[in-house]
């Protein structure tokens, strides 16, 4: 027993700190804070390590005295208790010492904080909006934007197929930013509070409805940086990752040009006359990306939280209410309002699709909703 105790104590005293520091010390460790790629993230990492080591040193001193006292003054070795119960100068001394250590920590912390906190305009300003449960990015200078959805399949999440390398850390369309450019993020929320975090930039800002928060970064090198939503935002909080792709300036300009052209094309599409088949095809794709996570690809939903669309009275017989739900959402439920976020074409096509899909086409009225119907709805509402 005594031998085991001795070995155990040695293990605690010697092995643990060594294991711990070897894990933590290396800069690209999986067990430590990300060093990141920006100047700010690197100074935050250095600050983190400084504070960490100060804590380690204090801890080693305090714990050594404590465990040494426990060892030295144990009654089984005949220790007799002394009878002192205070020491004025000792108590003043360690209070002052603790204060000085804190000042030593506060000075660099303040310096880093001042550097990180800067809400001046960027060369490029991006409005980030948190939605349940996806991010929307809008380039304010070019007036183009898009949604960024999780692209990991439901089968991977349910364990029906093997999980990919970037499981839950991949999106259909990452945010693209140019390197070596000051970028300001304007961050807000559409429904509940989300939080936009990219560890490599050390940017974490809450996305709060009714508020616009700012953060900034300046990424020196191209790369793909992955982050997450860090404020509980409902059922799919874990399923709305952030992915940022930093590219050279030329590539970025080309990207924006494509986006601008696409947006122009979208606007044209609204006035075009759509056939049922065209709407169905577009609607099916939209449904798979934006609706199927809750209402399921087979339209059965997950009752009672996510109602079934297959066989739904609204989807079969009430196209007016159907449009209203898509445009305004359903208060007090997980159903978000899609009206402001997507084009008339998208809304019309997904309504048409869900009215035709599964058994709804056969059993329901099969009404086709066109982009013009959505425009009409919007005009009526605006009046």
């Amino acid at each position, binding site marked *: 027993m005594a031998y085991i105790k001795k070995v155990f104590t040695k293990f605690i005293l010697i092995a643990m700190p060594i294991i711990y520091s070897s894990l933590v010390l290396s800069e690209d460790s*999986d*067990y430590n*804070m990300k060093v990141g790629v920006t100047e700010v993230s690197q100074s*935050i990492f250095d*600050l*983190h390590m400084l*504070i960490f080591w100060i804590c380690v040193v204090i801890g080693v001193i*305090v*714990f050594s*005295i*404590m465990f040494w*006292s426990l060892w030295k*003054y144990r*009654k089984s070795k005949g*220790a*007799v*208790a002394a009878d002192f*119960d205070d*020491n004025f100068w*000792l*108590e003043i001394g*360690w*209070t002052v010492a603790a*204060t000085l250590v*804190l000042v030593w*920590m506060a000075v660099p*912390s303040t310096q880093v*904080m001042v550097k990180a*906190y800067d809400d001046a305009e960027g060369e490029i300003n991006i409005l980030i909006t948190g939605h349940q449960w996806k991010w929307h990015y809008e380039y304010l200078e070019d007036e183009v934007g898009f949604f960024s959805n999780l692209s990991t399949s439901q089968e991977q*999440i349910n*364990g029906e197929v093997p*999980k990919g390398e*970037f*499981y*839950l*850390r991949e999106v259909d369309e990452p945010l693209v930013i140019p390197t070596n450019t000051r970028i300001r993020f304007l961050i807000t929320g559409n*429904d*509940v*509070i989300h*939080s936009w*975090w990219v*560890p490599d930039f050390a940017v974490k*800002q*809450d996305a*709060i409805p*009714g*508020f616009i*928060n700012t953060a900034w970064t300046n990424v020196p090198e191209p790369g793909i940086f992955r982050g997450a939503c*860090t404020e*509980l*935002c*409902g*059922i*799919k*909080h*874990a*399923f709305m990752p952030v992915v940022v792709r930093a590219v050279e300036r030329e590539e970025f300009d080309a990207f924006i040009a494509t986006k601008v052209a696409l947006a122009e094309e979208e606007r044209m599409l609204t006035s075009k006359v759509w056939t049922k088949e065209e709407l169905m095809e577009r609607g099916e794709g939209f449904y798979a990306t934006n609706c199927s996570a809750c209402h399921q690809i087979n339209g059965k939903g997950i009752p009672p*939280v996510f109602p079934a669309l297959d066989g739904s009275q609204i989807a079969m017989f009430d196209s007016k209410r159907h449009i209203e739900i898509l445009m305004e959402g359903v208060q*007090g439920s*997980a159903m978000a309002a899609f009206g402001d976020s997507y084009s008339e074409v998208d809304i019309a096509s997904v309504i048409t699709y869900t009215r035709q899909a599964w058994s709804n086409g056969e059993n329901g009225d099969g009404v086709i909703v066109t982009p013009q119907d959505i425009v009409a709805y919007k005009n009526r509402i605006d009046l």
Partner: protein
Amino acid sequence: MSTVVETHDHGHHGPAKGLSRWLFTTNHKDIGTLYLWFSFIMLFIGGAMAMVIRAELFQPGLQIVQPEFFNQMTTNHGLIMVFGVIMPAFVGLANWMLPMQIGAPDMALPRLNNLSFWLLPMAFGILLSTLFMPEGGPNFGWTFYAPLSTTYAPNTVNFFIFSVHVMGVSSILGSINIITTIFNMRAPGMTLMKMPLFVWSWLITAYLLIAVMPVLAGVVTMMLMDINFGTSFFNAAGGGDPVLFQHVFWFFGHPEVYIMILPAFGIVSHIIETFSRKPIFGYASMVYAMASIAILSFVVWAHHMFTVGMPLAGELFFMYSTMLIAIPTGVKVFNWVATMFRGSITFETPMLFSIAFVALFTIGGFSGLMLAIVPADFQYHDTYFVVAHFHYVLVPGALFGIIAGAYYWLPKWTGNMYDETLGKLHFWLTFISVNVTFFPMHFVGLAGMPRRYPDYALQFADFNALISVGAFMFGLTQLLFLFIVIKTIRSGKQAKPEVWEGAGELGLEWTLSSPPPYHSFTVQPQVK
């Protein structure tokens, strides 16, 4: 009924028989026992929820529960552990020990005491019943940030609000009783600066409770108005402010954190002096430290909100004020170490839990200091690093304090010694599993795993599996504690009045027989 009243009126023959003893009791020991058993049952309910959480997180992917149920588990686990386990356990210890430590026959307001306890099963009955309703229970985290908890909440949120109101009433009534008892019923000669530290810790805690519980009631009432009566306190679309919710909540929430640790400071101080056979070092500075911590707790709340977008001056102010708390807390740790220094130390189970308390609570303090550093907090905030931090201060902190107190006073309460071998086994299994569970959380947090995630990226898989194994071990080990407690109540070596060697000089409770008489001190003792 009438017989019950008569028993109380005429003789001091002890408690009434049967169920009415517990329903109508006004005795501080019976009510203390009720609180402690309530808290123990809640520990297993909240613990079972933690087991569900850890089972789901054992590996990536969704295997056992769906996210909506997972969110209900994290929310209720937090609410139950905070309001149903830690707080009632401390109130239970206060009920048992305060009259005995200050030389009083009972609490000052015994009927109020009965009411404050019986409100609790009502509150938690209401809260837990929501889990069986079609929409499910609260799923917005124990911090219930608006608008997730208002506009986007399930309808059962109204039950949650009512239950929080009832808990708040219970806490406020309990605190009034404790303050009244301490100020009015101390033995002659026991001046404030001669009060045992557990009494001091509870006096300060009770004031904190009275100060902040109404704030909690206010914030949930504002939610109630927003949800049902069309106000827009927290609804941006109606001109309200979601961040206001967080400011009000944390103005309650941060003092609440110290409500959950100060009584543990008191307990551990008694145990360390008993088993070091040496009076506590720096009694006066211990009292001042607790008072400073309590006062500072009112000006640090926004350190929970460093990422909501505060002005630079605000961020810096809350960083500095939070760092200041390290000074009184550090002083307490130094005092405990200085008490052990040159003592004559033995290692009974309460002492083992107290030593672990000092060591592991200090680790939680270090991570707290790291979290106070605003720029670094941008990386830590809402990750498992935070989860590691508050579990280190609440489990090996508050909970170890409670367990240590239970072992320390159990022989006094029951008249029987607990089984020391089983106690030590319980300690070592708990100590190992608590670290296996919570230490790796620092690593997954730093590596970037956000909290409240039912599913996670593959790089976190190994540590999560390890954490789950530790958690299951920790959960199972507490069944051993239950066994030990029941065994001690039923049998065990007869305990002497002073129970622990030399304890007779340390406090009035050790001058009473073990178990103590039903009405602790019928004649007030004189304190020199």
